[in-house]
Each structure stands twice: as C-alpha cells, then as structure tokens.
C-alpha cells in the first residue's frame, strides 16, 4: 500500500480512538446510498413483477381479434403458429365477462377464462398457482376460482357456483331459448399473487367457456404464444402477420398495460432524481466536514512537505479519504439495503401499508428483484460524488507551502 493511502486510512481510523469523523461521514453516505438503492430496487421490483405477471397472464405474444369477438378455426391457426421459428408452445383461450352466482341474489361480476387443460401449462405457470385443490381436476363440470374472489363470496373447494355470461343473458332477453346456466363445483383456488387476477377470475375449460360465450367448437377469443426467447416477442409478433386476417393481430406482451408500466418507469426515474439530490446534498456536507478535517491537519501537511512529500502525494492523501468514505459508505449502504429489503414485508406491515400494496399495486407481497445496473449506477455516483467532494480540500492541502503550513499551525 502506498504511503498516502496508508496514512489516509490511519487518519480516518486512528488507532485506540473512536473515529468520529469517519463514522459520521460513512454513515451519512451509507444512509444516502441505502435510501437510493431501496427506492430503486422497490420500484424496479414493482415494474419487473408487473411485467412478469402480464407475461404470465397474457403470454409472450397474443393473437386476438381487433374487430369482432372471435378467432375462427383456431386449431388450424395454432398449427401454423406453432411451426414459426421462436415459438415454443401455443394455447387457445376464451375470455369474457361473467356473472358469478353463489346463491340467489348473491352475485358478482368477474372475468372468465377458458383454457385448454392439456396445453395451458406450456404457455403459462397457471397450473402451479392452484391451491386447495388440483389443476388436473378441472373439467367441464368444475371451476377454479381466484382466492380473493372466493374469500369475498365465502367460497371454498367443493362448493358450487353458477356462472352466467352477459352474452347469454342478452340472447335470452332477445327471446332465444337457451339452457339454464350450469352449476359448477370448485376444484381449486387460484393464487397468482396478482390481486387483479385473484380477485376477479374464474378458470373453466375451453368447452365451458365457448358455451358461455356462445362460440363455435373451433372458435376462441385468442391464442397465446410461449417463445423460446422472451425478448424476441416483437419479432415473432411481426412474423405472425402473414398468417392472420385483417381482423386479427399479434401483439407482444408489453403492449398490454403499457401505460401502467411507463408510469412505473417514470416513477422510478423521478425517485432516482430525488434521491440523487439528497445524495448530492450529503456529499456537500461531507465535503465541508472534510475541509475542516484537512484544515485542522495544517501542521501535518507542512511536515509531510518538509519530509519530501510531493504535492501529488498530498492530493492523493486527502482525495483518497473522500474515496474511502465513499467506498465504505457505499458498502455499508448496500448491506443496509439487503437488510431492509430482507424484512420488507414486515416493514410494510408495521407501516400498515399492506392494503395500499394490495389495492394500488395488486400484490399481496412486496416483490423483490435486484437489478445489478442500479447498484453499479449508485456505486459510481457515490464514489464520484465523494471524490469530487474531497477534491477542493485535497487541492487546498496540496497547494500549501510547507513553511506556511507549519507556521500557521
């Protein structure tokens, strides 16, 4: 270790003495870094979780009608789509509004999704979200109900509900004679963790859904594609075009809820700006503390000059103190970030913000995705700011004449 670095470390952490200056400065930086990283990670996690849920929910690419309500001859189109490069799996779906009746006059509106039981697992993790029952038990007489919806209606596995679609109601009102709505037994609850889904959705077989939506045996309301490379969604969506009619289009997953995703990204950027300003203010404060720390060492600066230290050595000595404070503050800030985020759920509970999380962000748990780029950005920012904060005092010290420094001491 070069002597300026050695002395820098010793001046920050003097032996047998509590390092007040270093402790206060490092803590200041650490708090700034922790605030920055926690906010960035939480925002990043929210965005990432939303993206994941959207992909899980809609598939990597969705084929759906722009006009009308059906994709005709779904099996033939699925076969062509499955042959496209980059497509790993395809599955049809029939989606639409539904009236859920627990008892007479005890009804709620929800979203019905009809799926192909044999294909669904290949395009979405839905089968793994089923609790209190089995996905494989789903057939034309059974239904899977979102967990939050079930709780709201007092439903449980084994209970029975009646589903009615507005399409059928409209047809009945038009005088068409239709079968009475079928009673379905709940064979499991859906717990995706995404409150919008868990609070509104019922899952039925494709056949049941078609019957509810009054669709033909080969019709669907969409086809979902699972890709071998999730980042190729846009390219695959484009390559589907020649297989589709004018009324049907292929959309990559990120076009769904894109305004919400943009809002989350914007929120993250604004919070970064806010946190950056806080860190900037902290660095000014540390710069001023470092200046008084350097001024108090006037005599030593003179001594080092008398012993033959070059101005560049003195500059390195005090610049490295700012860098060290930044480095250690950043390391501590990262540790604090990990600690806080490990107990994020408990902290949200203590703040009484679980309801906000559920209602605003639709999550029942705080998601967590670490983004290396956020940490690298915070590290570079902190080390840069702290080094710049140390630049002025370091320049002042390096330009002191040894004779003056020793005389003024």
């Amino acid at each position: 270790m070069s002597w300026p670095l050695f002395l820098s470390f010793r001046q920050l952490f003097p032996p047998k003495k509590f390092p007040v200056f270093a402790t206060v400065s490092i803590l200041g930086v650490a708090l700034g870094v922790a605030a920055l990283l926690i906010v960035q990670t939480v925002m990043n996690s929210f965005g990432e979780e939303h993206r994941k849920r959207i992909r899980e929910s809609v598939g990597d690419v969705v084929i759906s009608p722009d006009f009308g309500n059906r994709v005709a001859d779904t099996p033939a189109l699925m076969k062509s789509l499955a042959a496209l490069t980059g497509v790993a799996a395809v599955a049809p779906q029939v989606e639409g509004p539904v009236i859920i009746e627990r008892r007479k006059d005890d009804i709620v509106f929800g979203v019905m999704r009809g799926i192909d039981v044999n294909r669904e697992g290949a395009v979405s993790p839905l089968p793994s979200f089923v609790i209190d029952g089995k996905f494989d038990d789903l057939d034309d007489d059974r239904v899977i109900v979102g967990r939050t919806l079930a709780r709201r209606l007092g439903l449980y596995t084994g209970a029975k509900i009646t589903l009615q679609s507005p399409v059928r109601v409209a047809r009945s009102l038009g005088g068409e004679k239709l079968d009475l709505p079928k009673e379905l037994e709940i064979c499991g609850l859906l717990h995706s963790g995404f409150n919008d889904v868990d609070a509104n959705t019922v899952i039925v077989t494709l056949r049941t859904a078609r019957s509810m939506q009054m669709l033909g045996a080969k019709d669907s309301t969409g086809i979902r594609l699972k890709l071998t490379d999730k980042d190729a969604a846009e390219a695959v969506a484009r390559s589907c075009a020649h297989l589709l009619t004018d009324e049907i289009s292929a959309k990559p997953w990120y076009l769904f809820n894109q305004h919400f995703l943009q809002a989350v990204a914007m929120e993250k950027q604004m919070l970064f700006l806010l946190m950056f300003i806080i860190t900037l203010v902290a660095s000014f404060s540390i710069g001023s503390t470092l200046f008084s720390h350097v001024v108090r060492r006037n005599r030593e600066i003179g001594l080092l000059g008398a012993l033959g230290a070059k101005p560049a050595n003195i500059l390195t000595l005090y610049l490295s103190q700012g860098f060290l404070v930044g480095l250690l503050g950043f390391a501590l800030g990262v540790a604090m970030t990990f600690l806080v985020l490990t107990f994020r759920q408990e902290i949200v509970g203590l703040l009484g913000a679980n309801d906000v999380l559920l209602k605003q962000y639709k999550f029942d748990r705080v998601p967590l995705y670490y983004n290396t780029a956020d940490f690298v950005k915070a590290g570079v920012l902190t080390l840069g700011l702290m080094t710049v904060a140390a630049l002025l005092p370091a320049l002042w010290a390096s330009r002191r004449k040894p004779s003056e420094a020793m005389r003024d001491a």
Partner: protein
Amino acid sequence: MSVVLFASGLTKSFASPGGKIEILRGVNLEVNAGECVSIRGESGAGKTTLLQILGGLEKPDTGELRWNGETVTGKGNRFLAERRARLLGYVFQSFHLVPELSALENVTLAARIAGRPAKAALPEAKSLLVRVGLGHRLDHLPGKLSGGECQRVAIARALVNRPPLVLADEPTGNLDENTGESIMRLLLDMTRERGVALALVTHSPAFAARADRRLILRHGELHEGESL
C-alpha cells in the same frame, strides 16, 4: 572534504504595513560533510527563515543554494520534494510527529516518502529507535510519549534515510534543561557517528559551543563568532 550545503548571497524580505522588512541580506554559508555548524541569533533575527530557505521550504529572493553540489534554487516543487526526502533530515522544535502513527511508523514514514518500501526501511528504523533509547516503545503513539521521547523519535526519523545533512531548528526549545541536554547530546553523537552534517539553530550558547563552527545571524548576515 565535500560541501553538502552551499549558500551564496541569499536574501529574503517580507512586505509589512510599515514597508519591506529585509530578513536576510546576502547570507553565505558552506557546510562540509560531517561538520556541525551552529547558528544563533536574537529572536526575530531570521534564524528559522534561514533554515527554511536552506531546507528548500522557502524560496530566497536572490542567491544560490546547492545541496551536495547540485543547484536547487529556481527548481520546481517536485524536484525540491524529491531531493529533500533523500538529502535532508529535519528536527523541529515542536517534534511534528503524525499523531495517528506509532513511533516506528513515524520513522518509516520518512523512508516511504523517500520512495523506500516500508519493509526495507523497517530494520534501520528499529535500530535507530533502539539507538535513541526507545526500543521498548516502538508501537507507542506520540500521545503516549513524553516530549523528550517525541524528540528522540524525530531524531531517528531525520536519520532514517541516511541524509548527508540534518537541519535542526531549536530541537531543545520545548524541553526542560535535563531532557534538552540529553537530546542535544544524542543529536550530536548520532550525526557524528554517521558522518552527517548538522546545521543547528539554537538559542543556547552552551549547545552552540559544542558545534565545530559557530555562526551568529545578525542584521540579516551570518558572522563567525560566539557573542550576539
């Protein structure tokens, strides 16, 4: 005998509200290798300024200064710092030890500044501290040492790079009579043992009398002699 310090026609003046004050008016001095030269003068005569100019810490207005035969006047800070580390040792009145470093680290610091690796300088630093009687206090911080012990560390530090010249500015000024006597004896003995030249600024006629040559700084000029 080689000249380790050569000064010719050194002048220095400072501006003051009352006009320019001439501190040095053409100082000439030669110090040979291994020679001890004492410089006395009244308070404010400019002894410390002269020593700072001789050590390259202050620049003269005019005149020439050479260390070991090499002209150093007019050279840049980097050059001066590099030569100072290698050719000069300093002993100050106020010891000027780095408070966060132990006695041993204070001594090795001077070697490291001169570009020697700490490990290479360690044996010599230890042996110097043993020689000044601090073999048992190597790891003590300056705050735990007495004034006399601090000055012993400073003497070891001044000699660790084996410079041809040591400049001492009132090295006993902050010490009591007995401690001052032992420090002065140590400084003179150690520089003589090692053949190091010593330029000693002191108020004490008794200490000055032990030098090979005694000089008086009076009215900005150096004169041979003993009485102010």
